[in-house]
């Protein structure tokens, strides 16, 4: 579904990504792990079009996407969440999800300004889909709160709901468990698995919580100083000498 081929990205003199390649199969859960500064978020930003790679190719369903901007990539069906939660704080929870429907709707200024019938119909659809999504993720009761009023855990869930509103085929989570307590993390891992089953989604996640990563991933890519150090199933990664030295260390892994 997604093919990343020999991606290089440098910032000034710093090489953030060095010849990184991997594939993601349809409905796979893929984790990208590595120490801080390994290039994980840069990788997400390159895939989602925020940064352009210096070299290399990215294919999404056989279509070359490495030269596209974030808007086009989002419209092709790749959505994402952010490490530092990029919600619309001044808007309500429901409105946040409704913005996710923007790329699936098309009423123009005049239709919107005069509330022409096509816009009213579309608006009803936007609201319905968004409310259903809020119900699906369990935030329906909070729909009239401002997004900024939610606790961090709920904000991360809301970001996922908003991403789902764009009807993605591939969704990328950037540290979804950061700021969550153990119980919430457990819930999140169930939720991500449920997403894959029920929404037929392909998922890539960057995460530091090894418990979560080992629990839900089918496959893991390990980055270290911008280079791919290893790739494999959780079992293989756990026993990989290189990975243990560079990242996992000697700590006990459950």
């Amino acid at each position: 579904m997604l093919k990343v081929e020999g991606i290089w990205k440098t910032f000034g003199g710093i090489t953030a990504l060095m010849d990184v390649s991997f594939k993601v199969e349809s409905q796979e859960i893929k984790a990208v792990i590595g120490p801080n500064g390994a290039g994980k978020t840069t990788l997400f930003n390159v895939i989602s079009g925020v940064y352009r790679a210096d070299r290399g190719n990215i294919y999404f369903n056989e279509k070359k996407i490495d030269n596209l901007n974030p808007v086009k990539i989002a419209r092709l069906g790749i959505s994402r969440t952010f490490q530092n939660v990029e919600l619309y704080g001044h808007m309500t929870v429901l409105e946040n999800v409704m913005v996710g429907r923007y790329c699936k709707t098309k009423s123009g200024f005049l239709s919107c300004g005069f509330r022409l019938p096509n816009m009213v119909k579309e608006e009803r659809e936007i609201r319905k889909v968004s409310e259903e999504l809020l119900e699906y993720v369990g935030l329906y009761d909070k729909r009239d709160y401002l997004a900024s009023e939610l606790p961090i855990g709920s904000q991360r869930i809301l970001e996922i709901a908003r991403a789902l509103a764009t009807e993605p085929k591939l969704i990328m989570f950037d540290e979804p468990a950061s700021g969550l307590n153990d119980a919430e993390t457990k819930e999140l891992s169930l939720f991500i698995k449920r997403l894959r089953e029920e929404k037929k989604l392909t998922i890539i996640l960057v995460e530091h919580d090894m418990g979560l990563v080992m629990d839900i991933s089918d496959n893991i890519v390990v980055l270290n100083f911008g280079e791919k150090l290893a790739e494999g199933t959780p079992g293989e990664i756990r026993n990989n000498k290189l990975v243990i030295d560079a990242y996992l260390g000697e700590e006990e892994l459950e």
Partner: protein
Amino acid sequence: MRKHVNYIVLLVLIIIFPFLIKDNYTLTIGIFAGINSLVAMGLSLLMGYAGQVSLGQAGFYGIGAYVSAILALKFGVPVVLSAIVAALVSAFAAVLLAIPALKLKGHYLAVATLGFGEIIYIILNELGPGGPSGFGDIPQVSFMGYKMTGQISYFYLIWGIVFILIIFSYNIINSRIGRAMRAIHDTETGSSAMGVDVSALKIKIFILSAVYASIAGSFYAHYITFISPTTFSLFHSVLILTMVVIGGASNLFGAVVGAIIITVLPEALRKFEELDVLVYGLILTFSLLFIRKGIVPTLLQRLKKKGMANA
């Protein structure tokens, strides 16, 4: 439903105002307040909702006035049509300005729009009929042969436009476009990742605000029948910005309230004679110090709190 109540209250106020106020002087101020409201509403959408600052609204106001006046006076174009053509010219100017300028943010964008306003001001001075002294004899608005010369009918015309554009603007705010617009105010990264084309949307809102200012300018010119560049200087852009900020940038009604206050205040302060400018300045300074969010949002907050306390 509550939204409709607001509209109805506003409509009733507009209708009864000329009956309460019999003197022409006050009606004239009312008409100016309406004209200023139009420009302020455009800026409120751009600044309060989409988060883009403009110090060049007087430029579009000037284009609206000059283009419409020249078309009507020199080419005999019917007045409402001339205002529509002027709005198209303003929209075109907005695109030319927006494409490079909206890549800038915050202060830089403000300075770029300020530069635009100055350019228009210089053009009006150099190329406008009558140069710096302006020109007169601009035709008045006429509908099917009937000339709108009465103060009351002009008051209704202006506030009718304000009323329609308030509804239009609120419909935009509560649509996919308005939500995306408010979204880019909060985070551009988070918006483009959801498929919102941030720069295209900014340009469109910029055009909308320019059209509002242009319409106001046209109806100003055909009302006052004499215009000169001074009216469209940087000072007017700053005045419009002040209206939006005093009334409350985060609320469209704030723009209207701000426009009314800033229009009425200098007239109300006449009794202070030579101290009027000082008192005016003090009022503005203190209101910015103590009601930072602007009058309307602050009042709404108070009401909400009170409502909760009562419940």
